[in-house]
């Protein structure tokens, strides 16, 4: 869609009064501190581009790349300006003009469909076991992601031996009487890096009368593509994914990944579709973050075993707290589990600086934001860190590693699954 036609740009841009409220909440501004890095500068540059006062150049692209799409600004703006949507529109506009084949190649290599993901997993695994050189020689893929391979290397979580999708049946029956057929959107990152989390998700859902449909031929949710200015691919993948769930007749769609669920809920649909395709319209209002779904729509099975006492803290992913307003639900889940003590960190809802490929392209900037977060985590004295987004998990895992802190990172659903298993074990013993 041309920049001028993007609804946010066309209808909302003019409402910016340049009050600067967005400056006060932007994690990037907090680090760079000059106006050129402020969200309102993004709005202003979008305006100049729309009006032809500014051309599409590498400099503008670099500016547009300095945004985490964390939505802190959009949430606070009194005029209702979705700054992140403008940044996305700018990136798309620049992408169209510059035809950035490098990024396209990377996105198509790593995140598109399950086959591409499989290839990426293989490459990453050999990369992680054999080192940078051989991988770069073999493929050159990671070299496209980041100029600084050393840093990118540290950021990527260890790839698991088997992808989650290999071990999850396409349809997992409800353990009790089936009440609802749930479509599980198993995102690329959970699939590749956190397979246990995916299995636990299915386990908890089936233990609560849900039949779980996990399609084997899903494409990526499109967030990395949208974030990198490739709206066309994102639109095609979104259509493909919804058709699968539509054809399979699921009642709702859930995801344990904050980015996937916010993308599926339509954060950027205005930019992807002139009119919402029928399959997508059908699901509008029926897409949930896993935590919220469990709390609001499931009569949760309370048969939870006692876990060893543990202190945990929770990090709010931007795509949950700012995009979906989900903040109390994951905490409610944690508080349900016997043995878990939840301690709040200062600024739990502050961005961790990951933002998908952002941390690779802007490692040092991302690292500064991350270091504040790690300090807040350390101050809680927690033994386990929880969050509801695999991208945050990776970024935070990297931060913990760098600070030599021995905390593991989990999704709240993993505690629930463990508590169910524990309950079963105790019944067997008694």
């Amino acid at each position, binding site marked *: 869609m041309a920049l001028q036609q993007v609804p946010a740009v066309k209808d909302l841009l003019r409402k910016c009064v340049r009050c600067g*409220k967005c400056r006060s909440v932007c994690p990037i501004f907090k680090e760079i*501190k*000059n*106006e050129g890095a402020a969200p309102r500068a993004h709005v202003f540059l979008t305006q100049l581009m729309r009006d032809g006062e500014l051309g599409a150049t590498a400099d503008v692209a670099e500016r547009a790349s300095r945004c985490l799409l964390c939505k802190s600004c959009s949430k606070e703006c*009194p005029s*209702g300006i979705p700054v992140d949507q403008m940044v996305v529109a700018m990136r798309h506009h620049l992408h169209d003009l510059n035809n950035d084949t490098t990024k396209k190649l990377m996105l198509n290599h790593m995140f598109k469909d399950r086959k591409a993901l499989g290839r990426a997993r293989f490459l990453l695994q050999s990369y992680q076991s054999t080192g940078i050189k051989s991988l770069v020689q073999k493929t050159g893929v990671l070299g496209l992601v980041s100029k600084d391979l050393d840093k990118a290397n540290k950021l990527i979580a260890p790839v698991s031996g088997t992808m989650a999708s290999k071990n999850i049946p396409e349809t997992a029956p409800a353990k009790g009487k089936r009440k609802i057929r749930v479509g599980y959107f198993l995102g690329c990152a959970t699939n590749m890096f956190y397979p246990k989390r995916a299995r636990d998700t299915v386990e908890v859902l089936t233990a609560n009368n849900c039949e779980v449909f996990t399609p084997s031929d899903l494409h990526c949710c499109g967030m990395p593509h949208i974030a990198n200015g490739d709206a066309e691919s994102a639109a095609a993948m979104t259509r493909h994914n919804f058709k699968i769930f539509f054809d399979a007749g699921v009642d709702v769609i859930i995801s344990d990944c904050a980015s996937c669920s916010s993308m599926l809920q339509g954060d950027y649909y205005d930019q992807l579709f002139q009119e919402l395709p029928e399959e997508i319209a059908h699901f509008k209002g029926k897409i949930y973050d896993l935590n919220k779904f469990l709390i609001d729509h499931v009569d949760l099975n309370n048969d939870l075993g006692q876990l060893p006492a543990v202190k945990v803290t929770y990090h709010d992913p931007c795509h949950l707290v700012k995009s979906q307003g989900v903040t109390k639900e994951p905490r409610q889940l944690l508080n349900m589990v016997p043995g878990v003590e939840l301690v709040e960190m200062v600024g739990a809802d502050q961005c961790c600086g990951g933002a998908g490929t952002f941390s690779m392209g802007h490692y040092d900037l991302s690292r500064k934001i991350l270091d504040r977060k790690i300090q807040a985590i350390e101050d809680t004295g927690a033994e386990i860190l929880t969050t509801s987004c695999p991208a945050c998990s990776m970024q935070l895992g990297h931060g913990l590693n760098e600070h030599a802190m021995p905390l593991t990172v989990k999704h709240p659903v993993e505690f629930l699954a463990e508590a169910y298993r524990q309950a079963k074990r105790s019944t067997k013993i008694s």
Partner: protein
Amino acid sequence: MQNEQLVKDLQAILGSAKVLSEKLDLLSYSYDSSFMARNNRFVPDVVITPTSTEEVSKVMKYAFNNNISVTPRGAGSGETCGSLAIQGGIVMDLATWDTIEEIDAENMQVQMRPGVIHAELNKRLAEYGLFFPPDPGSSQMCTVGGMVANNSSGLRAVKYGTTEQYVLGLEVVLPNGEVIVTGGVNCRAIKNVSGLNLTKLFVGSEGTLGIITKIRLRLWPKPKARGILMAVFNDLEQAPQAVLDVYKGGILPSGIEILDSSAIKAVNEYKPDINLPNAEAILLYELDGNPASVKWEGEEVSRIVGLLAANVEWSTDPQRMSELWQGRAVTATAAARVREDGSRIFAGEDISIPLNKVTESLKKIKEIGKKYGIGVVNYGHIGDGNVHTAPVINPEDPEEVKLGAALADEIHLLAIAMGGVTTGEHGVGAVRSQYARKEHGAALDVMQSIKRTLDPKNIMNPGKLLPEEGNKHGTSTSSGS
């Protein structure tokens, strides 16, 4: 001088990291919140971000010797083009210099550099049970340096006054690079009548007399209790009476704010949870002090205001109070919500009127709005007669832009005609200097001679606060609002 040379010279003084010369950076310093900045491009030649008095002094010496204008800038939340280089030259961004140097709790003082954000300062002070009372709606974004330069105030000026009442002393770099301290920067006394009051001269000088590099503020104990009373009126005219009645009852609230029907709508659309009742007008009274007096005053104000208002809600619940107060604080920007294709413009937005004429002024502003076919959202600090108005137009429609400018002019003239002033707190900048002769008469000549003495080459934020000399009518050469 060629830009390239200017950039090189500044890099030699400051190092390259503190000199911004890329086109996109310069463009990002071409706006503040004013309507005038929306309609013009005031792009500086270079932006610098110094972080020491020495650096500022060196730059000023250099600028003085080479006749280059320098415009200080805080967060750029101002409404009057004050921080824009309307004649080009250097923009000096002081917001990055944000250290709180000393909190002297025993002497109830704080010393800081100019870039400290107002809300951050009060967050830090709260740990000591202290606070800096002036409270602008831009608290989350504006710098204390900007507040001092503008003599800002806000929601609590009724009881606590404006910034000037709290400035004990300043460090200022003069246009020729010389560094002076005024008042109590080097002493800790709270009372000080020694010498001409130079501190007051710089407070509110809007960056036209020098760069403020250090600020010493006196602080107040943070009140232990607070309550907010919301009074709902079906008749706008009753609201100002309800303000006077409370004063007559011997009570001085810390803030009294008004929202008219369109302001109420805007707030409700921005934050539906606040859920203000639909009415002709809402008054918000804030009472603070010790718990017993706040309780008593809350009851008394409820009784007094209840005689006129259709409904009264008194709350000491922190959540509700923060909603209500936040509702008022965001009206300034949220006004844009009342018209789908419109934006609020900051023009003619800050007049100050004698207390007994507030109703009349609000009615007249509505009439002026009607005349131009422009919706105007009214809100403001009714407790001290500082009325804010928010014209909502489509700023991308050239016809409406012209109408907006004419409307602003009429509101300013109305203020003067009613015995008020064109600005109660946002300042003069480039947009209101045209009224200076009308407002100050012969005093304007004195102001200009002070400016000449301190800034003989007129390099310090030129084109702001004072109209160009020799222009007997005081008409500004700038356009847009």
